């Protein structure tokens, strides 16, 4: 089903979030059925404890932080890669592509050379490409691919304007050009705490993302960033993949409140079927 530009404009301006959500849910179910994937992520800091072993429950080990230098980034990747070498099925991701663009410019190397060096050290996925922070989104994402890495997700750092349509159309255009974006997280990673986005805005943005960015397989929502309540509602209006589920199965609050049980319970309560995946989008069977 194609939705015309006029229809999109009126959907975006409408307060009828239920109709928009139903449209997006139809699109999502045509593609994924009732299946909702989620990934358990163990974050490791760039400047963190070198002896730290990431949780064996993680499907993705993610190096977080802004690299101070190329050498430090490569060294940290090698350390973490060595630490998880025995864990098959775990994907090692790290870095924001925007930070890597800046780092390569600062150190006078090409982005491709930097990416290849990181790959040689053991990196598999660039953790995120913040669309609005990239200098040359198309070229940089292509470099990721050419360097033999994959992109874990396209994200939005901060909303450039309250109108969601131009940005979402630009993301769809980008995917038409690069065709390697597996997941898109349409909610901003950073919001102004004095004027946070509202529930209506978030639901509208997720639903429109599913309808407009119809060439990206997964619309993703971040469990830890947005919290279970909004993230679960997002699953009913077009999102089909959950990022950022903790890999620490802390049972201190009881089994039902442990992260794995909580995510499964929330997905089922949204009338969907939870499927754990790893960073490569392979189904995890434990």
């Amino acid at each position, binding site marked *: 089903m194609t939705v015309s530009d006029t229809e999109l404009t009126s959907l975006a301006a409408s307060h009828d979030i239920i109709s928009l959500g139903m449209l997006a849910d139809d699109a999502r179910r045509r593609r994924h059925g009732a299946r909702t994937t989620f990934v358990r992520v163990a974050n490791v800091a760039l400047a963190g404890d070198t002896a730290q072993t990431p949780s064996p429950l993680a499907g993705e080990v993610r190096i977080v932080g802004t690299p101070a230098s190329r050498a430090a980034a490569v060294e940290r990747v090698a350390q973490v890669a060595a630490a998880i070498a025995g864990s098959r099925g775990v994907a090692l991701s790290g870095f924001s592509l925007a930070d890597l663009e800046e780092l390569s410019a600062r150190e006078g190397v090409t982005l491709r050379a930097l990416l290849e060096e990181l790959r040689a050290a053991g990196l598999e996925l660039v953790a995120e490409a913040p669309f609005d922070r990239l200098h040359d989104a198309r070229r940089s994402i292509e470099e990721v691919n050419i360097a033999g890495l994959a992109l874990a997700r396209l994200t939005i750092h901060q909303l450039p304007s309250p109108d969601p349509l131009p940005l979402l159309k630009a993301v769809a255009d980008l995917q038409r050009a690069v065709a390697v974006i597996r997941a898109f997280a349409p909610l901003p990673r950073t919001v102004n705490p004095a004027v946070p986005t*509202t*529930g*209506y805005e978030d639901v509208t943005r997720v639903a429109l993302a599913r309808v407009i960015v119809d060439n990206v397989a997964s619309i993703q929502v971040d469990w830890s960033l947005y919290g279970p*309540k*909004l993230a679960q*509602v997002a699953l009913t209006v077009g999102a089909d993949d959950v990022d950022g589920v903790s890999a620490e199965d802390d049972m201190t609050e*009881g089994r039902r*409140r442990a992260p794995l049980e909580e995510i499964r319970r*929330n997905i089922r*309560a949204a009338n969907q079927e939870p499927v754990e995946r790893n960073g490569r989008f392979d189904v995890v069977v434990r």
Partner: protein
Amino acid sequence: MPNITGLSERVRAGERLSGDEALELYRQAPTALLGRLADAVRARKHPGGIVTYIIDRNVNYTNVCVAKCNFCAFYRPVGSPEGYVLGFDELFRKIDETIAVGGVQLLLQGGHNPDLPLTWYEDLFRAIKARYPAFKLHALSPPEVIHLSRLSQLPVPAVIDRLIAAGLDSIPGGGAEILVDRVRKLLHCYGKATADEWLDVMRHAHRAGLRTTATMMYGTVETDAERLEHLLRLRDLQDERGGFTAFITWSYQPANTELGGSEATGVDYLRTLALARIVLDNFDNLQASWVTQGGKVGQLSLAYGANDMGSVMIEENVVRAAGAAYCMDEVEIVRNIEDAGFAPKRRNMHYEILGDPIFRERDVPRMLELATARADGDTSVPDELMNYPARSRAAKQLRIIPN
């Protein structure tokens, strides 16, 4: 879903569903359909697109409680060093702060403290009304009224009459939890009020001319059929007396409680709210519980049947004790209402419109975090407590030897 289609059409046509029909709809209908139907009911009842809110303060005058409900993280037992009773002067100060931001009432509830006799409440209400004649007292949920009835050995209607004479304006619907005795026994709240007793207090209050609200705390041990039974019991009493102004539902908050477990999900909240809007066809108003669901799902409630954003919370203690601490001041509530396409209006407890947002009429301070009943570590005992007889040994000692 042939039957769901038929039931949906009947809801759209404004017909009442039986319990079995409503249960089938709740179990079978997709969330979006429930939302659509609830929204249609809301739009029929509130065609002007107005969403209301009240500026008031939710004050818990004591946390000492003998009821010991196992879902409650707020209470402290008699004699606990963390137990408190607020003094009249502290309450006056809270009222002054409430009036400063345009507030019109106190929502006053507390634990079942055996050392606060009925006369303490009467004196407090009279003192408040003497200082603030126009200020409203939305106070004492049905289990507190029953507690006072037991403590004073007076029948419930007599307690209500005395409280009205002292200044009580309306009764909040707290303590209803789920109005099914099987559930109440499991939650250890059967002793504080059975389902019939809770409803009887409301019946007496309505007879005495008071308007009240009704609530439901879901997500503990009840079945979906029991959730529905709760709604039907409220609907029946509303048919009989018509005294309820509004219905408010929220999910059980498990942190720091004896019962423990996990909280019902956001989608469950929206479905339950929508069910309530469909079943409670004789209630005019449904509040969004952003205090428990957060601002975002709270705002989404407006698409699932709610027409009221509840209270601009200046203070909150009970839900916070169980782990939720969301805060929205008037500016934020109004922004959320307008962003959802509705017109915000201030109201009083009777849901009469008082006007447009107060911050657009005059400068009011922003409130970016909730106040608490007492500052941490404040263990002071109000002087006037010495004037009232205590029942517990701990309080008797304290009142003989003031600190």
